């Protein structure tokens, strides 16, 4: 799961398939459909990241390139102080370019808990596995009038996830992902991701353009991601190299 997509929808950054839902949907199939929508298109876009803390906030503007697969290149444009900082993701490997040092560093395993640009998303979150790989899925019955479906994900034995439970909320009609809530192993909700706006792309896919990550333990800690100026189309392979990480990539 590559970095830009996760940022784009926060963790499961975007989605939604257009496949018609079955009358009695299989929970695992529903999740698979939702996750499958993460295989978004290759594109270039501008992401705006607003990190809010009690009494203050900080806005980042990021240029993002993704091949629609496992590769992405993110470069900080604003604020000036952080401009030039860049992140190259290839699979689960992440390289960071620091313009002040003029050096490229590979993120070590011990650094994966660091917060991405001080936001509420860590590198570990960004390089996390697909939800369908690590969890057993069950569909929680809501009232007949409810317009949502809730998938309750519980970790498989030995699954590499610290969460005790994850709830994934989908629209009952469009199966569009609305919200993800992460619980600890004592039943307490720690974090949620709300996907607030989506636009339809060609081929019946959706791109989440506005999402919010909230820390449910610490009041006032939240991060908003918005996507603008997206341009769907192939991105050259040379944009996902360490040279591009240092010098940028134009095409």
């Amino acid at each position, binding site marked *: 799961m590559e970095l830009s997509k996760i940022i784009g929808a926060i963790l499961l950054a975007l989605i939604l398939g257009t496949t018609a839902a079955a009358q009695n949907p299989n929970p695992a199939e529903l999740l698979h459909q939702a996750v499958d929508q993460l295989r978004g298109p290759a594109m270039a876009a501008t992401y705006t990241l607003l990190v809010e803390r009690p009494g203050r906030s900080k806005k980042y503007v990021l240029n993002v390139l993704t091949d629609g697969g496992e590769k992405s290149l993110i470069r900080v444009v604003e604020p000036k102080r952080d401009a030039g900082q860049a992140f190259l993701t290839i699979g689960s490997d992440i390289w960071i370019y620091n313009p002040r040092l003029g050096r490229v560093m590979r993120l070590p395993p011990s650094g994966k808990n660091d917060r991405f640009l001080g936001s509420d998303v860590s590198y570990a979150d960004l390089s996390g596995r697909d939800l369908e790989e690590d969890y057993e899925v069950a569909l929680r019955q809501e009232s007949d009038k409810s317009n949502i479906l809730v998938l309750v994900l519980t*970790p498989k034995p030995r699954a590499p996830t610290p969460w005790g439970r994850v709830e994934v909320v989908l629209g009952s009609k469009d199966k569009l992902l609305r919200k993800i809530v992460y619980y600890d192993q004592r039943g307490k909700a720690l974090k949620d991701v709300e996907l607030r706006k989506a636009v339809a792309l060609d081929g019946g896919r959706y791109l989440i353009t506005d999402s919010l990550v909230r820390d449910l333990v610490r009041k006032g800690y939240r991060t908003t991601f918005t996507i603008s100026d997206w341009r769907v189309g192939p991105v050259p392979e040379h944009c996902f190299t360490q040279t591009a990480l240092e010098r940028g990539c134009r095409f």
Partner: protein
Amino acid sequence: MKKAGWTLLSRLAWRNVWRHRQRTLLLAAVVAYAAVATIFYWSMADGYKLSVLEAHARYVLAPVTVATVDWFADPDPENGLDSLRAVNSALAIAGVDGYAPRLQFAGLLTSPYVSEGAFLLGVEPNAEPVVSRVPGKVSKGRWLAGPGEIVLGYRLAERLDVRLGERLVVSTAALAGPQSLGLQVVGLVHAGVSSVDASGVYLHLADARQLTGLNGATHLALDAPLGHEDAVARRVKQKLPAGLTAHPVWDLVGPIKTDVEAAKKFSLPIGLLLALFAALAVTSTLIVSVLERTREFGVILALGMDNPQLGWMIVLEGVLATGVGWLLGLLLGYSLIYYTSTHNVLGPLFQVSAEVWSEAGLTEEFYTHLSPIYVIYSLITVVVAALAAFLFPALRARRLQPSEALRWN
């Protein structure tokens, strides 16, 4: 009395010792104190070294470690042993039957709240108790029973905010590339060794192999009696195949060894200083005693004893009182170090340094060492003190005139 023999002098001295009971008891007490202080000091110094050695041999490292030469230079799984067959055969030939394979690697522990880097130790749950005391120090839950489980130092568990029965994610990147596993916390260790309690992570060898991609182990931990690690390591080393070597724990503790050896060297001048203080205390006690008895000495001289005999009598009195004090000091000193070598009364005093220097593996339990050599150390201290103490009174006795002594006020 013109010329008293040694027998008479001895009888006189013995009588004087008990005639001046308060003075005798004071002198004996001072000597006893010097003996107790010496015994306790050296027992502490040896206890410190053994405490560090014991903590590293049984909690942090192993009495003897067998691994490749490359692994000792760079303890990474890629320098580990892919097969244990050859080393198992070598250990059988060397007559070592108490050992346990281990797989050590660096990884990341992730709970829902926090992540922390750590050195993890993959172990065979049934073999580990042969070489380590950690399995017996699980204070909550239990020791490992199979794959899928993890045991943590209790302070690490507190930092990660993870409880018994909860899942902890272990991630690493070694021969198998980036790998992660969710393991259930089944036990919390309270070893009393700060580095174990603060950083100890133990998982099943099978899980460690899966995470790292190494089929064997990084090293083998060998059992050896405390103080015999060097001999066992030398014996095993001769039987190992090329590329493998064995190191006793003392070779692997790094700067801690330097520190402990430096502390031992520093203890020698401190011990001598202690003897000097003891000598000063005994001397001052004897001087006061002799000065107070000046008129008595004048009477003795007037009755016919000559000055050299008086000097020897004073020396004999000092020897007898000092001997009583030394024997008393031995009794008290050995009682004290016997108690502190069997009860952890000194451990709490080392807590501050253990907190500050947790990487040193200093134990929360601290026991003094019992050794008959302290009889000699204390005897040397007392003899040095006594020689210094007897010099002044004896010289004074040789110059004392009966007429002056009788007028002494």
